[in-house]
């Protein structure tokens, strides 16, 4: 046994020696024209690698080396692999300088709590000052965890905005005042009408990822704070009256035949004709939904847009705590947020190769005059080469700097800005739950929620029968501990605020 221990110790020592040897690599010596040393930054991004990425990055590097002495090494990791890969890269202390992070992939809160990300506040006063001033302060507020900023937010839609998405054909045909429809209950007469008049159409089409309208910030699903509850009372969403009645209504719709029968397991089948479905919106989302479905849709908000931590952390870029050149990384991000040429190069690729500029229509220019973030040109993608370089615009920050596409409205970013300004902060906005004391309990929740959630939300099962079952299981897994813990944390947070 002693021998074994010795061998193990020796092995560990060897591994450590070998890893520490390689920890400080990095090319040195190259300089740019200004005599600055050129620094290479490794940047992990979510999304599949593009065929022409290398070409574009070369162009970017040409520009950035000259400007600020920075070269990029962008590594793309596919959607499905990103979480796993980043977990490995971050936890092994591998070489990385910047990475994409958010509330739904490569979790921002967890990684920041773990100590993976650099504290940025100091840099934001110097190298990142311009970009700090540019972005809506509420994004910065959301990026703060315990008062410290760990990521640079990308200014997409700040709030979550659940919407009813109607197929325009039926809205027109039956003259439905869709703009007056908001709550789930408002839908009823129209669902009934469609159900009677259009037997081929599913009145309310739902898929397995559907969540019934929830008037609560589920800080740790299913526990959270109801919208508008300024007393900050932590509740289990399934115990709120609002959810209970929503589930009853859903059940009614389901039994009446308004909802597709396979809702709890269905994945979106575009061939199914539907009257209304639910979607999470943003400005001009109708255009995107319509393009996806192949016909026109119109949409209306289910409730006021609410800003929660999760919604405002929809996309950020974080810097490695062990980054060798943090000031350079911030400097680069700052440049990306402020430099039109660089930002559009990263977003659309090379002008003349992947896209060309087009003049917007006169009327459109006039209509958009005076609005913020309006450019005098639009982008037309090259049909041939657009598939060789196509990155989602929000994976990199500073998107208000991007030109809009030919088929997008010129005032798209102004609309985003307006949308964001109009969004309301949920009472729990800014509060972060440290789930550590109850991590065992929380680990059990997902299984229970996945088991019952979809069936209950879609009305596929009777809430009178299954809701108590769900509650029982949640209680057995210790939901009360989580509620108590969150309440005490949020009370403390409130006291400090």
């Amino acid at each position, binding site marked *: 046994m002693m021998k074994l221990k010795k061998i193990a110790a020796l092995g560990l020592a060897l591994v450590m020696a070998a890893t520490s040897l390689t920890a400080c690599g990095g090319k040195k010596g190259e300089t740019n024209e200004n005599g600055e040393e050129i620094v290479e930054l490794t940047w992990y991004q979510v999304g599949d690698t593009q065929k022409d990425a290398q070409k574009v990055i070369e162009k970017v590097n040409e520009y950035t080396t000259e400007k600020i002495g920075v070269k990029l090494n962008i590594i793309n990791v596919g959607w499905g692999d990103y979480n796993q890969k980043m977990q490995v890269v971050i936890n092994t202390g591998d070489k990385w300088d910047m990475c994409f992070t958010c509330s739904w992939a490569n979790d921002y809160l967890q990684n920041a709590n773990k100590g993976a990300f650099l504290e940025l506040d100091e840099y934001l006063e110097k190298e990142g000052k311009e970009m700090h001033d540019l972005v809506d302060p509420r994004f910065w507020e959301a990026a703060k965890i315990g008062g410290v900023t760990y990521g640079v937010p990308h200014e997409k839609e700040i709030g979550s905005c659940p919407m009813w998405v109607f197929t325009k054909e039926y809205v027109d045909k039956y003259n439905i005042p869709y703009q007056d429809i908001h709550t789930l209950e408002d839908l009823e007469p129209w669902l009934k009408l469609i159900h009677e008049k259009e037997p081929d159409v599913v009145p309310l089409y739902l898929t397995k990822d559907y969540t019934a309208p929830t008037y609560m910030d589920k800080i740790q699903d299913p526990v959270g704070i109801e919208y508008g509850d300024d007393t900050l009372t932590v509740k289990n969403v399934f115990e709120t009256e609002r959810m209970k009645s929503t589930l009853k209504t859903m059940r009614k719709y389901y039994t009446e035949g308004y909802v597709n029968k396979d809702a709890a*397991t269905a994945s979106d089948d575009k061939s199914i004709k539907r009257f209304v479905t639910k979607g999470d919106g943003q400005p001009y989302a109708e255009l995107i939904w319509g393009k996806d479905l192949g016909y026109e849709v119109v949409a209306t908000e289910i409730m006021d847009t609410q800003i929660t931590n999760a919604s405002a952390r929809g996309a950020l870029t974080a810097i490695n705590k062990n980054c060798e050149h943090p000031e350079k990384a911030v400097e680069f991000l700052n440049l990306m947020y402020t430099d039109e040429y660089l930002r559009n190069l990263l977003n659309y690729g090379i002008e003349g190769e992947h896209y060309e500029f087009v003049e917007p229509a006169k009327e459109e220019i006039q209509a958009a005059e005076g609005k913020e973030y309006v450019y005098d040109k639009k982008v037309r993608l090259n049909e041939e080469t657009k598939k060789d370089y196509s990155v989602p615009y929000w994976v990199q920050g500073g998107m208000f700097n991007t030109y809009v596409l030919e088929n997008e409205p010129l005032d798209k970013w102004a609309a985003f800005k307006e949308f964001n300004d109009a969004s309301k902060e949920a009472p729990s906005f800014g509060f972060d739950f440290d789930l550590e004391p109850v*991590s065992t309990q929380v680990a059990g929740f997902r299984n229970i929620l*996945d*088991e019952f959630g979809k*069936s209950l939300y879609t009305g596929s099962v009777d809430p009178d029968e299954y809701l108590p079952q769900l509650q029982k299981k949640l209680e057995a897994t210790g939901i009360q501990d989580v509620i108590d813990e969150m309440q005490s944390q949020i009370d403390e947070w409130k006291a400090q605020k």
Partner: protein
Amino acid sequence: MKQSKNKVPKQGFWNRVKNNKELLILSMPGAVWFILFAYLPLFGVLVAFKKYRLSGGFFQSLIESEFVGFDNFKFLFSSGDAWIILRNTVLYNFTFIILGVVLPVIVALLLNELRNKGMAKIYQSSMFLPYFLSWVVVSYCLFAFLNPEKGYFNNILQQFGHDGISWYTEKGYWPFIIIFMSQWKGIGYNTVVYLASICGIDKTYYEAAVLDGASKWQQIKYVTLPLLKPVITILLIMAVGGIFKADFGLFFQLPKDSGPLYPVTNVLDTYIFRALKANGEIGMSSAAALFQSTVGFVLIMIANKIVSKIDNENALF
């Protein structure tokens, strides 16, 4: 076995090395590989007992992270369904282990006895095909049959005047579907070992049996099966080690992660996956893996002990 042990009386270590020099050299490349790729990473299991927090490189972080004993293991049992999940895992695996021996052996014997060898090859190759389809692709194909609205099965049922079945919410059918699909996918692969073993049997055994007037069935019973016993035993022992591990795709992709089916599809691996979706605590995932391995290890040891009691020759070691 015992004899050979006695033949080599207590020698000094170096003497033994000297006497086994050639075989030792043959073992070396493999041994080096195991040290590098299997033993060096083993320090990773320590994470299971730590609340892993980053503070520099991995080792520094590992050492500086707080030691939390068995806290990371608790979540495995915290759920009210822990019992059902364990039961599902063990029962399915038990069935797979048994069927995973019985079916391939039968198929191997059938293939072996066919008069038309050309067909044997074709059959054998065809049965291998499912192995190449990932569970995701298989789940799409299965959905084409089980789709409640326009699937083939419900179409047939409706043509005969029955109501369609909501396949993805009726849990009663799924134990059969899962067992069937797992065997369907694995049978070609599993048959190969037995086919090769049959192939390796010295033909003189059969000649002797024929001379003694043995029928085909008797040949199988008294020649083939006894000679397959070592392979079957070894594969069984190894399979027992995996009894707490489940094929994730089979239990997650195939039933389309449908909630109402959880009582019969939730197994340890799917439970762990869902549990850790919420918090990426690597300590917890290592703890889960360590738990599965430890149970497997204990079971292998027990199985090996039993086998070596009965027939030392066939034991793992």
